């Protein structure tokens, strides 16, 4: 078990394994997302209040939960890289950031598209939307710091520390924003997600979520492979692998 994990930390080994895993995740993602989209858009019954408008949650909720999941993932990878000095873990953290930022943006965009017909405006200073926006800023800060440092190892370690500081702050930001929101606005809105969902609706949401997870895994593996290629350029194993195949 441990040797398997140790082996995974070596770039050549990871490069080989990820090449085999990526198609599996990609096909699983495609199948699950197509099935989930079909189920969510045609099979699931319309909401009694929001009618068909609620169907955007099949994109909104998976991207919102992934945006947070990826941030925690990034911080974990960063911590592993910082503590055990595994270069590959840093590559994973670096690859997570743009994906996470994209999902955060997607969650914000679908949220405001949903808000237009439901609440009448594109943007409301709702607790969830606001903390999602702050999360987007955290991603931007991470990517900006990484981009500002030229030296690879220093960029890795500095941004890893930033990700860890950020992940400690995420719950504080979330609860402070919620507290601010309940004080400021009467609880007229933001009922979304909370009420118990009908099973017919929920099951497609879970399918969609699994599909998004597989999609994330496939994209992550591809990005980390690209990162490994970039970092190991000029190394012997890479030449052997590329020329051998």
């Amino acid at each position: 078990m441990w040797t398997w994990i140790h082996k995974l930390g070596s770039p050549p080994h990871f490069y080989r394994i990820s090449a085999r895993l990526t198609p599996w995740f990609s096909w699983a993602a495609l199948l699950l997302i197509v099935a989930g989209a079909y189920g969510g858009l045609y099979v699931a019954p319309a909401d009694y209040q929001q009618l068909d408008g609620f169907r955007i949650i099949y994109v909104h909720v998976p991207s919102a939960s992934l945006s947070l999941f990826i941030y925690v993932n990034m911080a974990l990878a960063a911590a592993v890289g910082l503590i055990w000095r595994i270069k590959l873990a840093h590559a994973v953290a670096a690859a997570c950031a743009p994906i996470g930022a994209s999902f955060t943006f997607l969650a914000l965009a679908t949220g405001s598209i949903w808000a237009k017909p439901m609440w009448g405006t594109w943007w409301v200073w709702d607790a969830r939307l606001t903390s999602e926006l702050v999360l987007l800023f955290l991603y931007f800060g991470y990517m900006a710091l990484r981009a500002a440092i030229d030296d690879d190892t220093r960029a890795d370690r500095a941004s890893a520390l930033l990700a860890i500081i950020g992940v400690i702050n995420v719950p504080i930001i979330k609860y402070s924003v919620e507290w601010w929101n309940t004080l400021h606005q009467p609880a007229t809105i933001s009922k979304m997600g909370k009420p118990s969902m009908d099973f017919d609706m929920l099951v497609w949401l879970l399918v969609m979520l699994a599909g998004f997870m597989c999609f994330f895994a496939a994209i992550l593996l591809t990005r980390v492979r690209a990162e490994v290629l970039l970092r190991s350029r000029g190394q012997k194993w890479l030449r052997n692998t590329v020329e051998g195949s």
Partner: protein
Amino acid sequence: MDIPGLGTAFWLQVKRDLQLAFRHMGQLANPLMFFIMVTTLFPLALNPMPKLLEAIAPGVVWVAALLASLLAAEGLFRQDVDDGTMEQLALSPQPLALMLLAKTAAHWLITGLPLVIMSPIVAYALFLPRGAVPTTMAALALATPILSLVGGAMAALTVGLRRGGGLLSLLILPIVMPVLIFGARATDMAMTGMDPVGALYLLAALLLLAMSLTPFAMAAAMRISLD
């Protein structure tokens, strides 16, 4: 030679930084001037009606304090890193976290405390009700050390970079957003006659958290930057 104890080293460091700061009085006043000038901009840009100013006063005071501390964080470690003092601190037998905490404490005394002391005047200029002033001062006294500590950790991360300024604000602002929320809400609650003690407790809790964690983050960041 005897190695000074931790407490002695801490006070010596604070004293040194204060002495250095008092020899450059001009730089000392910059964040304070900035704080006052930003608050002056609002009556000029908006309408100087007392009613309107009173309504926006809590937000203006807190945003201005946040921006002033952002400006101050920039110069926290730069000089010491440039002239090699920081390398000596990193090599010294005392833990780097403690020394950086001492530097941040001195920094707060120079840039944070004046904001707290000046805040009643700014509050008066913005027609903040008298009753809300003590709460605002207490909240600022709790919040400005947090801003200094978080600013210190981020300044340590970016100190080696040539183009630090814009980046630093991008790193600090999302992290300190809860401080702004609790602080402005404390002022707001005192204005509307509610009991602001809950918000103050939350600020105090954040201060304790920042004091216990950020020195280590600062030290780790500084070691990465010095590499």
